[in-house]
């Protein structure tokens, strides 16, 4: 009986390195994309889930991340793990999505003559714990930077490269994100809005 929880190839096959997989992907090999998906979909799903809190968005963003990775595989720099690179692509897509949503919200707000919120409203809708709610109060750039550093374990240099911002911006965002998160947590725990 096949145990479907783990694919056989994941269990005990000598693994092809990420760099080799990316080379195969750049050559248009579908199997390499399947292998890459098997390796990283769960981790990326968690990252996107924390960043968006919307399961419908997560599926679409995950799909778009791997597709974008496949299309730019030939530009992969050959590092041993492509996880930071994939997280970076996912973060870029999140940023673009926010910009698109932001433009839409601005247009709608101008029609209704109301002030659009600086933060993405969707994470708040799905936040469950006080940390979730406090995290949702951060602007998306700060939230993404903080998650990439503290949860995904990316270095500041990797985050800067992934988000295409100067490293000083990453440091500033991290500092501000920690400060705001602590303040938001204090407010959550003391029952203030």
């Amino acid at each position, binding site marked *: *009986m*096949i145990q*479907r*929880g783990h694919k*056989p*190839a994941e*269990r*005990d*096959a*000598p693994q092809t390195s990420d760099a080799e997989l990316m080379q*195969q992907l750049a050559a*248009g*090999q*579908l*199997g*390499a*994309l*399947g*292998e890459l*998906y*098997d390796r990283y*979909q*769960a981790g990326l*799903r*968690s990252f996107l*889930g*924390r960043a968006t*809190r919307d*399961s419908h968005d*997560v*599926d679409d963003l*995950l*799909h778009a991340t*791997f*597709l974008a990775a*496949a*299309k730019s595989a030939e530009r992969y720099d050959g590092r041993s793990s492509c996880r930071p690179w994939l997280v970076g692509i996912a973060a870029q897509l999140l940023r673009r999505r926010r910009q698109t949503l932001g433009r839409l919200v601005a247009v709608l707000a101008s029609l209704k003559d109301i002030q659009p919120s600086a933060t993405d409203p969707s994470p708040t809708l799905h936040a*469950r*714990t006080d*940390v*979730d709610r406090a*995290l949702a109060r951060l602007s998306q750039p700060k939230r993404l930077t*903080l*998650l990439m*550093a*503290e*949860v995904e374990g990316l*270095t*500041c*240099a990797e985050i800067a490269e992934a988000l295409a911002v100067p490293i000083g911006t*990453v*440091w500033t965002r*991290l*500092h501000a994100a*920690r*400060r705001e*998160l*602590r303040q938001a*947590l204090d407010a959550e725990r003391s029952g203030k809005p």
Partner: protein
Amino acid sequence: MKARAAELACPRLFEVEALRDGRLTGTEVTRFQSHARTCPICAQEMQSITELAEALRSTATPPKADELRVRRERTRLLAAFDASLAPIPGSSRTKLWLAAVAALTVVAMLAWRLRPSRTAAPVVASPNSVQVQAATTTKWSRRAENQLETITLEAGTLSIRVDHQRPHRRLLVMLPDGELEDVGTTFSVSAAAAHTTQVTVQDGSVILRLRDLPALTLRAGDSWSPARAPAPDTAASVLVPPQPPLPSVHSANPARASVPSSSNAAAPAGNNSDSATDFRAAMSAFTSGDNARASSLFAAFLGQHPRDSHAEDAAYLRVLTLQRAGNAGDMKQAATEYLARYPHGFRYAEVEPLSH
């Protein structure tokens, strides 16, 4: 306020974050670490930032996607990538030719659609290229979203026809215990008591994915139904954990079928038992890492049980074991055989590169 007071209390407090973010180098790290050992304010700040990070890591992630959803998304991704690799027709002459063919196709479709109907079947809903017939007692619903049409069957029987000559969305039939994906077909599907009880394909093919069972491709003339669990044996049930029943696939085409072409849901017990034993033996060799033996056993399984529900898995695992055994020639041959046999197989995308 508290932070401001702390900053006044220790001018080096900012170095806590600098250390964490990798802004300190070489001796700066060593010096600050020795300072933090003697400064309770900096030590507390370090602890506070660490706790903040732990709190972030412990935030609930969305519910883990179930296996079927992951497999479906994986298939969707590979199909999208595959489509992106397809060459785009270039010359205007080719475009003109394609337009002419498209126009002819539209005319032919219109003629076909306008022909007098010979049957009085109760078509319940046909707003697009998917026609669904359902008995009045069938519990079902349909939903279209973006490029996906989902039909959910709770109980009863549906007969579905997908007209692939017309623009259409991907069609998924959600079953109580799995799902069924259309690959261009006319088929019927039944469910009862939270289980799929019958799938019959009249034209084209479908991929049936049920929980805890391998994906199964059913083609025109095939009929699937779950095998009934063997009658409980009191003595045996104490000693041996019950095995899940193996499904059976029957083909209406005698030339393709190796099992009797019966509509009875249960296949002969002897056949099932043999195929299950053979498959387990091959899997045992596979999991123990004896790839040469596993590939032989999978090949033997395919020879003896070509229509078994595990046949596609066996064909794929044979390719995998030959690859692991370093037998490139036989692996290519096995991959080619898999592709020929399962042109819509679940592992097609993975096997295809290995056939070259």
